[in-house]
C-alpha cells in the first residue's frame, strides 16, 4: 500500500535518528561513564577532610576548587554522579511499575476506580518536596529513604496516565471484538491494552527520572537528603551554602552538572515523545 512505514514497524532505528534522542543519550552516556570510571578520572578520595585546604578556588590541583572542609569538589561531583543517576533510574523504574499496576487496576475495575483515583488525588495534593522532607525526617537520611520519598509523589502521575490510556483503549472496537472472541481479562490487558501504554510510559519515565534527579538535589541541599558521607550533587552544594559569597564554585560546578544532566534527560524525553508518537504529547505529564 501507499506509505510503507507505519504503525507496528515503529521499532528502534527511526527513534534513534531523532536529534533530541541522540543528544540526550550521548550526554547521559558521558555522565554514566564518568560515574562508573570515577576512580580513574583524576579524582582523590571525595570524603577526605583537609582542613588546611579549605575554600580554595579552582586550580590545576583542584579543578573545581575545595569546599569548607577542604574536600575536593571535582572528586565529589564525579562520585556524586553515581548517586544522582542511581536515584533517577531507581525512582523512574519504581514509579513506572507501581503507577502502571495502579493505573491498570483503576482503568479496568470500575468500582475500584473512584476509590483509587481519590487516593491518588490526595497524594498529589501533598507538595512532593514536603512529603519527602517529612519521610526523611521520620525515617532518617539515607539513599533508600530518599528513593522512597521521591517515588511516592510520582506514582499518581504515572497512574493517571495509564488509566487515561486504558479508558480510551477499552472503548476501541478491537478491544470489544476481543471480548466478543472470548479473550479473558488478563490476556486482554496483556495483548490489547498494555502495548498502548508502552510509548507514553517510556516518555513519562524519562520525565520522572529528570524530576527525581532535581528533587534529590533539592532535598540534599535543604539538609533532608543523602548524608554527606556519600557525596551527591545535592549535598555537595549544601556544603557551599554558608560560604557561597566567598566560594561560589562549590555550588556552581555541581549545579551545572545537575542542570546539564536533567536537561539531557528532558530533551531525551521530548525527543522520544515526538519520535514514538506525537499524539501522546497531550497525554503525558500534566506537570511537564
Amino acid at each position, binding site marked *: 500500500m501507499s506509505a510503507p512505514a507505519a504503525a507496528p514497524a515503529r521499532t528502534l532505528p527511526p527513534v534513534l535518528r531523532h536529534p533530541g534522542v541522540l543528544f540526550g543519550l550521548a550526554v547521559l552516556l558521558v555522565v554514566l561513564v564518568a560515574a562508573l570510571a570515577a576512580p580513574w578520572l583524576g579524582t582523590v578520595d571525595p570524603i577526605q577532610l583537609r582542613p588546611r585546604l579549605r575554600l580554595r578556588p579552582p586550580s590545576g590541583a583542584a579543578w573545581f576548587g575545595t569546599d569548607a572542609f577542604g574536600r575536593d569538589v571535582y572528586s565529589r561531583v564525579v562520585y556524586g554522579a553515581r548517586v544522582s543517576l542511581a536515584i533517577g533510574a531507581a525512582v523512574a523504574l519504581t514509579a513506572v511499575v507501581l503507577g502502571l499496576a495502579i493505573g491498570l487496576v483503576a482503568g479496568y475495575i470500575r468500582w475500584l476506580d473512584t476509590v483509587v483515583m481519590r487516593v491518588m488525588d490526595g497524594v498529589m495534593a501533598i507538595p512532593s518536596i514536603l512529603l519527602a522532607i517529612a519521610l526523611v525526617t521520620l525515617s532518617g537520611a539515607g539513599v533508600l529513604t530518599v528513593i522512597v520519598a521521591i517515588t511516592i509523589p510520582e506514582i499518581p502521575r504515572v497512574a493517571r496516565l495509564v488509566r487515561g490510556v486504558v479508558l480510551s483503549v477499552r472503548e476501541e472496537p*478491537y478491544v*470489544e471484538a476481543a471480548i466478543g*472472541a472470548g*479473550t479473558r481479562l488478563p490476556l486482554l490487558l496483556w495483548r490489547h491494552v498494555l502495548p498502548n501504554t508502552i510509548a507514553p510510559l517510556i516518555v513519562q519515565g524519562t520525565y520522572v527520572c529528570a524530576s527525581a534527579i532535581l528533587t534529590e538535589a533539592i532535598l540534599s541541599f535543604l539538609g533532608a537528603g543523602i548524608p554527606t558521607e556519600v557525596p551527591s550533587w545535592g549535598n555537595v552544594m549544601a556544603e557551599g551554602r554558608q560560604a557561597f559569597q566567598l566560594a561560589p564554585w562549590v555550588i556552581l560546578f555541581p549545579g551545572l552538572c545537575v542542570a546539564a544532566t536533567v536537561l539531557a534527560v528532558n530533551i531525551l524525553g521530548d525527543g522520544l515523545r515526538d519520535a514514538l508518537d506525537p499524539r501522546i504529547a497531550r497525554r503525558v505529564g500534566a506537570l511537564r
Partner: protein
Amino acid sequence: MSAPVLAIRDLTIPLPRLSDRAHAVEGLSLMVAPGEILCVVGESGSGKSVTAHAVMGLLPPVLKPSRGEILLQGEDVVKASPARLRALRGGRMAMVFQEPMTALNPVLQVGAQIDEILEAHADRLSGSERRARVLALMRDVHLPDPERMAGAYPHQLSGGQRQRVMIAMALANDPALIIADEPTTALDVTTQAQILRLMRELQARRDAGILFITHDFGVVAEIADRVAVMKGGRLVEEGTAAAVLRSPRDPYTRMLIAAVPSATPPPPRPRPAATAPVLNTRALEKTYGGGLFSRAGRTVRALDGVTLTLQPGETLGIVGESGSGKSTLARCVARFVDPTGGEIRLDGTDIAPLSGRALHPYRRRVQVIFQDPYRSLNPRRTVGQAITEGPRNYGLPREEAFERARRLLDLVGLDASALDRFPHEFSGGQRQRIAIARALAMEPALLIADEAVSALDVSVQAQVLDLFESVRERLNLAILFITHDLRVAARLCDRLIVMLNGQVVEEGETAAVFAAPRHAYTRALFAAAPGAHRVEADPPAASGAAGS
C-alpha cells in the same frame, strides 16, 4: 448563459512527496452559473474536498495550486493577496461545512457567531442594524424563536439547527457563491431532507451559485442542476443532473450510480420454514444513569421494551436514526453492556443475567462486525493473529485455527498471504472483509452487523453487501443488520424493525414495510430518503453491482 460566478480552469494541486499519487487535483475545469447548483460527486480521495477548500483559499500550507486559475466573478482567487482573500471569504463567497457541531465555536453564542461575519464585512451597519439582520437571517433559515435562540450555545441546539445556523452565517453577506462541503452527511435522514429543502428554497430566492460537494447520488438526485463526477483528482464526467443520472457515459459514473442501493427491495427470497429461533428478546430494557450517585431525573431509556425474534438463516434489519437505541440493542445482545431488564434468549437460554465465566460459552455464538474498519482491528497484531484469537481462546490448536483462517480469507475474497500482514496494509473495504472472516472463525449462530457498511464508499459498500449475501446463503447464518439507511436495509434484509426513542415502532416483512409503512415515523423516513423523488426513468440499477 450569464457570466459564471465561479470558473475553475485547468486547476492542478500537487500532493506532498511520498503521497500515494502525484496530484490531489489535476487539470480540473468547472463552472458554476448564478442560481445554479453544481454537485461535485466522488468517493473519498477524489479531490472534491480539496477543490472546495482551494476555492475558499483554505488549503493547508502544504497544498498549493501549481497551475490553473480559480475565477470568482472574474477575479483569480489563487493570486489574491491575503487581505483581498479575507474580503472575498465571507463576503462574496461562503462555505457550509460537513460537521456542524465542530464547525461552530462551542464557547460563543450562535447569534454572536452570525453577527461576527456581518461585522467583518458590512462595517457600515450599526450594532442594532446588525442585530436585526442576524434575527432576519435566523428567520430565513426557519430557526424557531430567533430572539431566544441567538443567545444559545451550539451544544444547546440539535444537529439540524446547528447546520441552519451555519447556513444563516453563509448567507449573511449575500455571497455570489456558496460552497457546501457534504453539508448533510453528518445528519440523520429526516434532518438531511429538511436541510436540502431549505437549500433549494433559499436558492430559489437568491441568485447565488452553489458548489455542492457530496458522495451520495441520492442527494444529487434531490438537489443538483448539474453534476460533475471526480475520480482520483480528475473530472470524469459532467452534465445536467437529468442526463448524468439517466444515461451516464463514463463507466465509473455508471458504477457509482449502480452501487447506490435501490429504494425498492428485491423480491423476497425463499426462506426455510420457521424452526426454533436463534435469538429472541423479550421486553429488553437498558437505562443509563440512575445509579447511587447520579443526579435525580437524569436517566436515559436507551432501550424500552424491545421484543424481537430471529430465525436461523434470516436477516433482520434494525433501522433508526441516531439516538434510536439501535446500537444499544446490538451491544446488549452481544453483551458488551448489561441490559437493565428483560430477556435475551440465545438458542433458548437467557443470557441477560449471565456474566464472566457463565457467559463465556455463549460469547462465541454471537459475533459483531463494527462500523469503523480502521478501529476494529488491533494495529499491532497481524491479520492471522486477529482471526485466530477467538478460536484459540476456545481451545482450537494453532495449526487448525490458521487453517480455518486461510479458508475464511478465501471465502471473503482475500489472499491467504494476508495472514502475516498488518491491518494498515489494507483498505477500508478489505479490513471489513477481515473483520467478517474474524467473526466467522468463531462459527457463530448469530452475526450482528452494526452499521458495518456505513463508513465505506458506495462502490465498496456494494461489494461488502454482496459478501454478506453470499456468506448468509452458504452458512445459513442469522444476521442482525443495524443500519440508518433504509436503502441498504432493503437490499439485504428479510424483515425490518424500525426503532424510535428506544422502542420498536414498526415491524414486518421488508417488502410489506416498503409497500405500506404503517407508522407515521416510518413514512417520514421513506419520504426523507435521498433520491426517493428522483426520476426513475432507467431500470432500477439493482443487484450484481460490480464484482469485487
